[in-house]
């Protein structure tokens, strides 16, 4: 206490508090800048770490993988059959697949007449744990997953001949990577009769071509709501893939950039990580998203390009991964659950990047405090009618945005929403001629203070669960703190500036702009359209959070 006392006395003697109060808005900007810089320096050597297998039991690629020449003809045989199934309706495809799985010896069942799955009970375990191999009939781009389906069934046949499994193996064929797979996962944990214990890990196969050869492997691991699979799972996937001689691409990095290992490539990968994770659920799902929320570590393996690597080599990745996971005696718990990957074998752990989001939250808190004390506001007591009025407005806007969200879920109207948002932003410009009464100015300051304080609170609560989303909305909404309330009649340039700032920080406009600029997949108002199915299908929070956090603050 002595040291704290001494500092406090010194501060009092120098009269720092009143001096520093004036600079609160500046502090807010500086803190936000620092947090952005602290994110930007992560790709520099020394800031990130090399990945390592934390759980010793995994031992990836330590056992010889046998999915080789002996399986070629079986795989091709299945593939020839699958090729003929392209035009068949889903139920017929599933029926054929069911007979195949039954022939191999699996217990099969269907869910909703759309998803078929087979369970191989482990010869050596108590049957309380399972590993899932999921194959969507159509991948995220809507292409028919010919190679994937053939691989799935031949891998199932291959696995079943082995006596080594200590966990049940479940093979799932769903129509697509999104809603149907998600509904199967949910049904598995709630209503299905045929189950095989708690799912430890899931691997989704995506090989959407009829060719024997491919070039490199994309690994997708972003779950919903910022959830990520345990880093150990991603590590064994990367390690096995590279061990089998294939190149790994994360976040859809194009072929020609795969071998780059520079500061700039890591920086780009960092941005891609943040973007993909914060837009997960809004973008087209790769399949691993479907397993989020049930303590399942899931990732998608996608074969890409045309090249010299054989399809059975691709099959050896799930084989070796299954053998690694099969070794586990406990759930995945050793390694990191929160990380950003800068390259397949470089990562940043949460302790390095979390301060950035905390900083942004702090920046909003500083702005909030600044609104309380600056512009002679501190002479007005806290418990006053102004505060009450501001609290009521704040409460009403939360209620309004809540009701609005529910309405929007029922009736989608993105264009009109956009129009209203833009209209709102121009209020300062339109109402320029109307001077604010002295009392109204205080209320306006208090309203801003509450809005920023609330926003800071939302960011804080979000940043542990979904860091990328917290960071993104924090950055996107930051221009809001620069909006000024002037005591005199605002000049037209000031009003225009305010309007622009509001326009930029409006949650809908900024999210749309963000996804348009940084993501080729989402153009125009597509994001807003997608937010809704994402909510409906996948219980995604993104929509809700951006709504609650941003909307009334924008008001």
């Amino acid at each position: 206490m002595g040291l704290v006392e001494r500092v406090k006395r010194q501060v009092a003697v120098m009269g720092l508090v009143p001096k520093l109060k004036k600079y609160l808005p500046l502090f807010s900007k500086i803190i936000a800048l620092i947090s952005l810089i602290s994110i930007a320096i992560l790709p520099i050597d020394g800031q990130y770490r090399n990945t390592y297998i934390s759980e010793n039991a995994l031992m990836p690629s330590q056992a010889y993988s046998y999915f080789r020449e002996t399986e070629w003809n079986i795989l091709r045989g299945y593939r020839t059959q699958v090729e003929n199934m392209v035009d068949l309706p889903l139920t017929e495809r599933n029926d054929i697949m069911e007979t195949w799985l039954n022939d191999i010896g699996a217990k099969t069942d269907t869910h909703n007449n759309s998803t078929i799955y087979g369970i191989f009970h482990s010869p050596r375990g108590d049957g309380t744990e399972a590993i899932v191999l999921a194959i969507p009939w159509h991948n995220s781009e809507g292409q028919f997953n010919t190679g994937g389906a053939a691989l799935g069934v031949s891998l199932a046949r291959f696995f079943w001949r082995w006596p080594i499994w200590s966990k049940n193996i479940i093979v799932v064929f769903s129509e697509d990577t999104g809603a149907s797979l998600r509904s199967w996962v949910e049904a598995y944990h709630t209503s299905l009769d045929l189950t095989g214990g708690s799912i430890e890990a899931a691997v989704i196969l995506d090989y959407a071509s009829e060719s024997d050869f491919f070039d490199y492997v994309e690994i997708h691991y972003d779950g919903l709501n910022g959830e990520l699979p345990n880093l150990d799972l991603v590590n064994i996937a990367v390690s096995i893939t590279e061990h089998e001689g294939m190149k790994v691409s994360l976040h859809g990095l194009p072929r020609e950039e795969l071998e780059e290992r520079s500061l700039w490539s890591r920086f780009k990968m960092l941005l891609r990580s943040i973007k993909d994770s914060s837009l997960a659920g809004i973008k087209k799902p790769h399949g691993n998203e479907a397993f989020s929320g049930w303590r399942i570590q899931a990732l998608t393996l996608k074969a890409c390009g045309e090249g010299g690597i054989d399809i059975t080599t691709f099959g050896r990745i799930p084989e070796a991964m299954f053998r690694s996971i099969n070794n586990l005696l406990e759930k995945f718990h050793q390694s990191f659950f929160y990380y950003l990957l800068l390259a397949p074998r470089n990562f940043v752990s949460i302790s390095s990047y979390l301060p950035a989001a905390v900083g942004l939250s702090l920046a909003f808190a500083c702005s909030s405090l600044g609104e309380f004390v600056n512009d002679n506001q501190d002479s007005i007591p806290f418990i006053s009618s102004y505060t009450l009025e501001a609290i009521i407005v704040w409460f009403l806007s939360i209620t309004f945005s809540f009701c609005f969200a529910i309405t929007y879920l029922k009736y989608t109207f993105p264009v009109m929403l956009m129009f209203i948002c833009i209209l709102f932003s121009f209020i300062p410009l339109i109402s320029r001629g109307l001077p604010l009464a002295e009392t109204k100015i205080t209320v306006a300051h208090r309203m801003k203070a509450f809005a920023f304080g609330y926003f800071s609170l939302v960011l804080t609560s979000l940043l542990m669960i979904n860091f990328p989303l917290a960071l993104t909305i924090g950055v996107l909404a930051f221009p809001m703190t620069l909006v000024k309330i002037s005591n005199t009649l605002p000049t037209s340039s000031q009003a225009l500036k305010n309007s622009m700032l509001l326009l930029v920080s409006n949650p809908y406009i900024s999210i749309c702009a963000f996804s348009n600029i940084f993501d080729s997949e989402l153009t125009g108002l597509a994001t807003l359209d997608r937010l809704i199915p994402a909510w409906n299908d996948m219980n995604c929070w993104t929509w809700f959070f951006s709504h609650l956090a941003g909307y009334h603050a924008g008001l």
Partner: protein
Amino acid sequence: MSLILHLTSLIALTVVSRLLPMYWFPSLTTAIDHSVEFSTPITSYRSLKEGLFLLNSLQWKNVYNGGVVHHPILLLKLVNLFQCDTTLYFIVECLITIQFYFLTRILLEKVPKLKEQLPVWVPSLMYCINPISILSFISKSTIIFSNATLLSTLLLALHHNIIGCSIMLSLASYLSLYPTLLIIPILTFFKASKNKVKFVLITLINLQVLMIISFKLNGNNWNFINGTYTINLNFEKNYPNLGLWWYFFIEMFMEFVPFYKSVFNLFLASFIVPITLRFTSTSFDHFKTYAFILCLGWMNLTKPYPVMGDTGFWITCVLYFLPLSNYGNYFIISILLLIHSIILSPIFYYLWIELGSGNSNFFYAISLVYNLALGSIITDLVWGMLRFEYDDGVPNYDLKLTQI
């Protein structure tokens, strides 16, 4: 006239603010009752319902045999009387609101400075619209019965009603054990030593009577003492909660457990006497009330099974310290800590239990923040009282004092 108007509107507000969420979100009661912040094994509605079921079933002779029920038998019998227990909860909640109103009225007479700062209806209103109290009420945590009796104790003590006060205090102790300690701060409300002796004696007799009634109602079985009180003292059900206890005992060698449990209990009890002695020997009469509230806060901080309902209640009591608010050193920090910890604790619990990407340290860390907030509020209040005394009741904010 304004009294009736105030009371009716407060009661109406209490009922509306609690009835609407319960009506709109019927599943809220179960949801909150399952959250560790609002319910513990000894206060949860689930356990109460189990007790009621066992009480009414023919096969079971004794409700405490299963080791699930930890509510006192009289409370079970009382709730059992009501066809719809929500009615009883509403009655008790309205009682608390009304009592806050009368408590404020009597304190406004005794503390002249309070009159300018606190309209008479504010504390009850704050209790009405306090989200923590509302949620705690919706969870149907039985903590509100203890809170109601504690408030009556204080109110009757201020009225120098010895018999009523001792009955209420013994009821509060009967309901949740630790309020027994509050006999010490309450004693200072009675000046004559004859009254003090009388108060202690009546309280003890009341407790005896309550015990004997419970013994009879429990089928001539003393095991309700184990079921309701020993579990509290011994912290026998080690569940995560917002308190400081549970984390210590999850991985402690069995040999040390009894020692540390006694230390924790001693820690709880040891500060009651000093606080009472220090703040009731001054010339400021209202410091007795303050000492009572401080002791209550201290107990909330250190007891084995704290719930949010305690805090919601106690924060309302802290409003009476308003004349000291300018002496507070880190009032804003405490409030921010409290808000953040209340928001983050369910999130961290979710990360630990549901997602599995966090662990128990996350939740314990945030519960430490929560306790730090409560602790810093208590220290601020103590400091404010000491300064108030130093300035002899005439605040001199220009004078900067620090501890040595």
